[in-house]
């Protein structure tokens, strides 16, 4: 399978000293949804900004949609779609006018433009409000309009930077339904940054966990969870379960057994294949079971395993955040964007 994105040793240093991104390398396969997961200030948006020609890298190389990301910024922008964290639609224009403007900017063929605009307005449930100024739109409508603008030209690769930030659970679910449907229809590659673990778990084919500017783990959500130590099978006996702990420890592939509130938590690489043995061991001891459940480890545990600290979605500004802020402030003073 060819790769839609290849990053090799990407580096971004702010103020000559703070490494926001530190030799990041990864590849995203064609048609894949690839998640860049990490807390605030981890280097997610900086990486995305370099891959979309918004930010010049300090070092490294990247190929996006078959183009050198740093040598062909205008061609690159034609082949990719970008949905920002914040609303970037023109507030004074209507939803339709914003889409028509985007169609012209991305050179959507003139004869296809009206059909494409109507399709997206319908597809993203914006048709009824298409002729209202964007300043009257709700948060969810603005996010959907951002997405419509981002895909107006049917990009090869779609970059989503924290696309559901600030949306309520229903809004997030609706947004992701649209993304997965569009991906199925068009085969578009999606690169997303998020700090919502559940979102990355449910949506992504593969995930890279980034922390302090470095990728600390990469794989499918299942692989990452397997690397933590596999599944947890919870066994609840009807009685005290005398001898059950030793019998469970003796089962092949069991890595640990913990007892908590009368429930035996058995850790193993593959819970599905262990459950029959667990039931067999209990039956062999004459113990009746009140219940057996299987829980795969969540990405919270994965994050803890690879970064050595618990995940907090609302972490305060990190050293990188502060460096980025200072750099932008200095740029502004020097007259740079």
């Amino acid at each position, binding site marked *: 399978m060819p790769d839609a994105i290849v990053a090799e040793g990407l580096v971004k240093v702010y103020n000559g000293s703070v490494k926001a991104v530190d030799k990041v390398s990864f590849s995203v396969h064609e048609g894949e949804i690839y998640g860049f997961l990490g807390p605030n200030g981890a280097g997610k948006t900086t990486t995305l900004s370099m891959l979309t020609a918004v930010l010049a890298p300090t070092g490294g190389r990247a190929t996006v949609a078959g183009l050198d990301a740093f040598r062909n910024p205008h061609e690159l922008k034609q082949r990719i779609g970008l949905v920002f964290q914040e609303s970037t639609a023109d507030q004074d224009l209507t939803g339709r006018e914003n889409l028509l403007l985007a169609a012209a*900017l991305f050179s959507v063929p003139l004869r296809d433009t009206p059909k494409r605009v109507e399709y997206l307005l319908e597809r993203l449930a914006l048709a009824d409000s298409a002729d209202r100024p964007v300043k009257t739109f709700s948060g969810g409508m603005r996010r959907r309009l951002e997405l419509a603008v981002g895909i107006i030209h049917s990009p090869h690769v779609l970059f989503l930077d924290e696309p559901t930030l600030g949306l309520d659970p229903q809004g997030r679910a609706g947004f992701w339904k649209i993304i997965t449907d569009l991906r199925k229809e068009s085969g578009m590659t999606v690169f997303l940054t998020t700090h919502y673990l559940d979102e990355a778990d449910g949506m992504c084919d593969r995930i890279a966990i980034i922390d302090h500017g470095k990728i600390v783990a990469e794989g499918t959500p299942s692989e990452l969870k397997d690397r933590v130590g596999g599944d947890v099978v919870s066994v609840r006996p009807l009685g005290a379960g005398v001898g059950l702990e030793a019998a469970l420890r003796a089962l092949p592939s069991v890595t640990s057994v913990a007892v908590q509130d009368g429930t035996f938590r058995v850790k193993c690489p593959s819970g599905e294949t262990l459950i029959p043995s667990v039931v067999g061991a209990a039956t062999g001891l004459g113990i009746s079971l009140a219940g057996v459940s299987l829980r795969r480890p969540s990405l919270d545990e994965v994050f803890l395993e690879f970064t050595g600290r618990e995940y907090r979605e609302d972490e305060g500004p990190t050293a990188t955040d502060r460096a980025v802020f200072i750099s932008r402030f200095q740029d502004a003073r020097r007259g740079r*964007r």
Partner: protein
Amino acid sequence: MNVRRWSALTKRELLKIARNPAAIATSLMLPIMYLLLFGQGFNFTSSLAYLPPAERVAALNALLLGAPNYFSYFAAGMVGFVCVTATLFVGANVIFDKLFGSLKRTAASPATATDIFGARLVAGSIQPVGLAFLVLGLAILLGQVGLSGLDVSASVTVVGAAEVVLAILLLSLMFAALFLALGFTIEQPQTYFALVNAINLPVLLTSAALYPWGAMPAWLQDIASYNPITLAVEVLRITFFGDALYPYSAGIYLLGLIGWFVAMFTVATLLTQRALAPRV
């Protein structure tokens, strides 16, 4: 430059202007107040009526280089003034587009800095040009209702009218380029407006827009001779009142304006390209 992108961006700018009637009304207020109050109250040449006709003409020629009265001289100056004040919003709009994110969206598209700058330059010059002609029309109209008005004493030829249009257009484009350059390089609206005020007043007060030429000290005349507002305003005065008392023809003043425009356009284009390039 991509024509489709450029025209779409220009249309966007014009739609934004059209949807902000309050801003249009505000930009109209200033020239109307100047014409109705300052121009009427300061029309000092009516006080020269006691002089014998020959002496009166000589005094007017010395002071106003052939304009029949101060209001007429001043009305031409007001056109230049309007071209400056009405263009300063183009730079402010860039700053607000940065703050509200829409410039980020445009910069993330394949549109080049030239497309983005060019569209704003053209759209931003349309309003001042329209206002300039409104000022001219109003100044002429005032003379028809018993007030001091613009008295066009020379016969205006087609070439002269074209020179007036060109002068107004060049002056608007030049100041739009200047304010766009500031808008693309400055982040905070407060800084922008402070800088614009620091530019506007000295530029206006070192021009011949308001002062009777003959009353200006020689050193100020020397400075004013190179001021772009003076260059544009002199084209209007030559066309409306004749060129007998002017050292150069309208064509020379227009050349000076073209020079100013080219210089400002070049600087602004470079600054815009720098501002829209990937951040380092």
